[in-house]
């Protein structure tokens, strides 16, 4: 029997995008729904995201944003290297921290750092950044095959699903294993031409 799962990342308080994605995934017959973290930030209504995740029984991996908000840390731990990025990120983080309810913070603390499942006979590992670090950026152009092969072997996965960078890409490695960055739905990748991108990654057997 065939099975379809839907995996997405980066909600960033965009509950409208989340609603659209969940409806789209369901419409396409996705059974299990997974979110790879970073629920808050940037959007004006952080608390509107949580009821939707519960309603659709989305399984959520903890992102760095969720970890920071959950544990009331001083910043988002996004791992930016440019002070300009940190300056703007802090404004958004402080707002999100102030507008996330205690009950939702408590829930954020319970989220797992990774989820493993089997899909089409393959070992699937879902993380926010990378298997070894929640805020490691796996960009397409800076994640070479030998490095990814090492990670997948070490963490015993055939398919690695991640987000954090917000830019979707996927690659089959020489071993036949696969890495998929599912992108971000709340602030989807765009190259300035307004076309956006496919906000959801649906895998089907």
């Amino acid at each position, binding site marked *: 029997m065939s099975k379809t799962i839907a995996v997405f990342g980066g909600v960033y308080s965009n509950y409208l995008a989340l609603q659209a994605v969940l409806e789209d995934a369901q419409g396409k017959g996705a059974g299990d729904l997974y979110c790879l973290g970073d629920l808050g930030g940037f959007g004006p209504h952080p608390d509107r995201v949580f009821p939707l995740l519960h309603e659709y029984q989305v399984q959520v991996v903890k992102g760095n944003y969720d970890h920071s908000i959950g544990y009331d840390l001083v910043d988002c731990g996004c791992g930016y*290297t*440019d*002070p*300009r990025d940190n*300056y703007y990120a802090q404004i958004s983080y402080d707002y999100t921290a102030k507008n996330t309810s205690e009950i939702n913070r408590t829930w954020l603390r319970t989220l797992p750092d990774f989820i493993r499942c089997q899909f089409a006979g393959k070992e699937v590992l879902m993380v926010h950044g990378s298997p*070894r670090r929640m805020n490691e950026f796996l*960009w*397409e*152009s*800076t*994640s*070479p*095959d*030998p*490095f*990814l*092969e*090492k*990670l997948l072997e070490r963490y015993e996965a055939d398919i690695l699903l991640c987000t954090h960078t917000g830019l979707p890409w996927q690659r089959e490695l020489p071993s036949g294993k696969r890495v998929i960055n599912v992108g971000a739905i709340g602030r989807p990748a765009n190259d300035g031409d307004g076309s956006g991108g496919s906000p959801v990654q649906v895998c089907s057997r």
Partner: protein
Amino acid sequence: MVTLEQKRQHPKVALTDLDELWFQVAGTLCNLACAHCFISCSPTNDTHKLISKERMFTALEEAKQRGVKEYYFTGGEPFLHPNLLEFIERTVEQGPLTVLTNGILITDRMAQKLAELAEGTPYSLDFRISLDGLTPEENDEIRGKGTFEKIIRSVKRLYLHGINPIITVTEVREGMGAAAERSKFIELLRTFGIQQPRLKFLTPFQIGEEAKRTSGYAPEEFVYEGDLVPGEDEWLQCANARMITEKGIFPCPILINHDDSKMGDSLTESEGAISLRWSACYTCHVSGVTCRN
């Protein structure tokens, strides 16, 4: 409880993962002789010779086996190496590469070739160009007479060919890394038509020429057991980087003129932990600086 005896020891940092591999491509040979150079590179310094093809290609093969994440070429001035283009071509086949340069030797023809190489690889090919001031007076005091204009010319040339270099600024004057000063560099780069300027600021190391320019390290400026904060032994650069010169493998790009920091001749021999026993380690500990992008 840290005892006085332990206090005199230096902490050790284990190699958690070899993510960054540095190549001292041009050794200590450089077309410039900057006043702040921590390894005193110059047109006549051959302490570390140009890297040989054999060492380069052997190391690249080893690096592939070990799943290295990113590569860096530095010197001296990498564009003095006659085989640089071949090295770049081979390296970007297996991972992202950043070349650290003063940019001056990048001709129009060379910029064109670099752009073609960048276009032809799935991995990123970046160039870091050093600039140490906003004006010819500020920069040339450090990098040499006439260098400001030559550097700017190269920056514009690369940009024209579709390469947006990372401008690397060493904080040779107080406050250069502060937000207001950074903004001035961004504004300067925008006047050249660069819409999204890329900048990296580096803390100077008080060794080599820089020790002569300033006062060098004070006798107590070392890292001692108990000084590291939680997690620091994982984010210090030596926890995930190594440097290859024609002489062998070193813990990081900064320590190559400390012969006693040499770890061996192959990457396998450089897997061990290193002791933070050099005064330059104090700068990484205190400022959190890293040579990576």
